[in-house]
């Protein structure tokens, strides 16, 4: 069935179809319409779940963690300051190996208050042990939420997963989305089998004082799971493709085969870059797009093109573009642009311009300071 709706409503629908037992939610712009819609599903009896109206995002994540530790499939959604408030608990979910699934609608961080798109909120969570997906269309939002559960709950992975997309550019924009039947989703996504559980018949203590050596073992096993997730993400993305006709992986390559330059972008910027690539190809330029779908685990091995132009809608003050710096040092010739922070519009025309500038050997803050 084709549905035309906003990414937020599509995310809520995907969460509903994944049948979470527990949803903990707190409002924040531009995420709010996700949790509003989920509350409606639960109150109308369309979704059998416990909906916890928490008093903060920190509590939302704490509640999801505790529910997952009790054996429940969980969901929450947030943005920006909400995600930052969760930061401590994001680490907790990661280290506790609890496959909580969350949607983050990317929004800039204040002050001053800015509700528009910027990836700094979720990129700042890169070390928390969460698998991170970035979606460029409402269809990808739907498909990624469903896959996120299967990947996170995989018995070899058991890590939390976050699906992020741009505030307003996607969150409040309607697009057509192919929504599979519930029975097909049920076939694809098996019941949650917890890795460990709080069980009165088999009491365990989780998270008490852990000495240095076993702590390092916990970190090591988390790293191994993250490495393994690369393979699992591709396998599950392929399985999803066979079942639903849309295949996914760590990255999406577009017209890269003979490209002299490859533009690297993520989230909505990647959709815009696709248009720029088509325009440039029409002008005879040999350029392609590499869309990063997963930021954690980071697909280094897929970023081996000779010349790359990396566009960051984010900034690490004192270092530069976050994605640029992740890739830098891999042997490629890389041009980095900082663009679109706080929701500054970046059109395909701007991306074409960045390509032209990179060809001249220039990079920097677009358009104000390019050298």
């Amino acid at each position, binding site marked *: 069935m084709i549905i035309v709706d906003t990414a937020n409503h599509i995310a809520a629908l995907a969460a509903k179809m994944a049948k979470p037992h527990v949803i903990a939610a707190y409002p924040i712009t531009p995420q709010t319409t996700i949790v509003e819609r989920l509350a409606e599903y639960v109150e109308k009896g369309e979704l059998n779940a416990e909906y916890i109206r928490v008093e*903060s995002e920190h509590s939302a994540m704490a509640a999801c963690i505790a529910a997952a530790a009790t054996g429940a499939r969980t969901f929450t959604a947030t943005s920006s300051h909400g995600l930052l408030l969760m930061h401590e608990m994001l680490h907790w979910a990661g280290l506790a190996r609890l496959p909580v699934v969350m949607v983050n609608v990317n929004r800039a961080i204040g002050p001053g208050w800015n509700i528009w798109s910027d990836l700094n909120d979720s990129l700042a969570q890169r070390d928390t042990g969460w698998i991170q997906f970035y979606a460029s269309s409402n269809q990808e939002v739907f498909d990624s939420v469903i896959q996120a559960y299967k990947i996170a709950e995989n018995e070899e992975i058991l890590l939390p997963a976050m699906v992020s997309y741009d505030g307003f550019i996607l969150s409040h924009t309607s697009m057509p989305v192919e929504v599979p039947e519930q029975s097909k989703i049920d076939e694809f996504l098996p019941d949650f089998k917890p890795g460990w559980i709080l069980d*009165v018949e088999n009491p365990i*203590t989780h998270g*008490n*004082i*852990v000495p240095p050596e076993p702590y390092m073992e916990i970190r090591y096993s988390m790293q191994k799971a993250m490495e393994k997730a690369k393979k699992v993400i591709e396998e599950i993305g392929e399985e999803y493709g066979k079942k639903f006709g849309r295949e996914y992986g760590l990255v999406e390559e577009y017209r890269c085969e003979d490209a002299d330059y490859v533009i690297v972008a993520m989230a909505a910027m990647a959709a815009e870059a696709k248009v720029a690539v088509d325009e440039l190809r029409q002008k005879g330029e040999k350029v392609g797009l590499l869309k990063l779908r997963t930021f954690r685990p980071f697909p280094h091995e897929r970023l081996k093109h000779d010349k790359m132009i990396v566009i960051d809608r984010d900034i690490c003050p004192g270092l530069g573009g976050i994605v640029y710096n992740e890739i830098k040092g891999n042997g490629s010739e890389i041009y980095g642009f900082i663009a679109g922070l706080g929701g500054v519009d970046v059109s395909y025309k701007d991306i074409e311009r960045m390509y032209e500038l990179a060809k001249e050997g220039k990079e920097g803050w677009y358009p104000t300071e390019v050298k």
Partner: protein
Amino acid sequence: MVPNGGEIMAIKDLPMDEYILKGHAACPGCPATIALRITLKALGKKTILIVPACCSAVIQALHPHTAFNVPTLNIAFEASAAAASGVAAALKMLEKKDVLPVVWAGDGGSYDIGLQALSGALERGTDFIYICYNNQMYSNTGIQRSGATPYGAWTTTTWTGKKERQKELAEIVMAHHIPYVATATIAYPEDLYEKMKKAKEMKGPRYIEILSPCPPGWRFDMSKTVEMSKLAVETGAWVLYEVINGELKFTGYSKRILEGKERKPIEEWLKMQGRFRHLKPEDIEKIKQQLDEKWQHYKKIYGGKE
């Protein structure tokens, strides 16, 4: 003596079940461990314990061992009540309706950093018991001032004595209109046990606060924990009561004080504790005055005679 003024069990009648195992890491004379031992005897096997950062996170002993024989989830300092909401929701969905989520938190995690989550969980009606074992300071980090530290007390962040009064968390909790609120202390284990049992039989949010005199923190001999708890009640520094659906009743020795029995002089309690050693006569006068005001307030509202 009959603390509740009625028929009550003897200590020897407490269940033989033990959920605090040998090999725990509590200090000698630790009141929190005594309180948890009695609490779990009342609540039983079908309890999921949620513990934020506090002494009891250490008392459990080192991973991969544990001294707690009920499933225990350690969680971040400010997050225990929110975690209880998560556990309660999952238990409901997974149809494990006879299992009870119980928070076991210190006063730092309850009065201060965890107050927001506690208030949230109470307001949204989470079906759980929240227990605050109150030792009137951050003891696990080495005796720092908390919102529960009384006026005048030395801590490592109030070297010359705390300049402010403590807040009354149980009274803040009461403002949430929850079914059950009670206070207790380990000097009266039967009273503590009975209150836990009563809470267990109820639904919705329930709150119990246990005064927990800490020998290293309060600077007294580890053999005096019970006496210190008892004297706190007899001097009126700690008050025993329970509130069922909004109706407050004083219990045990506190009830007798309300009904006219004279409080023991507060100096008896203060002089047993090194944390009050530096107090000047005018400080003690101020403490006495605060205590008199508190009891006058109780007698006015709850019908006792002065």
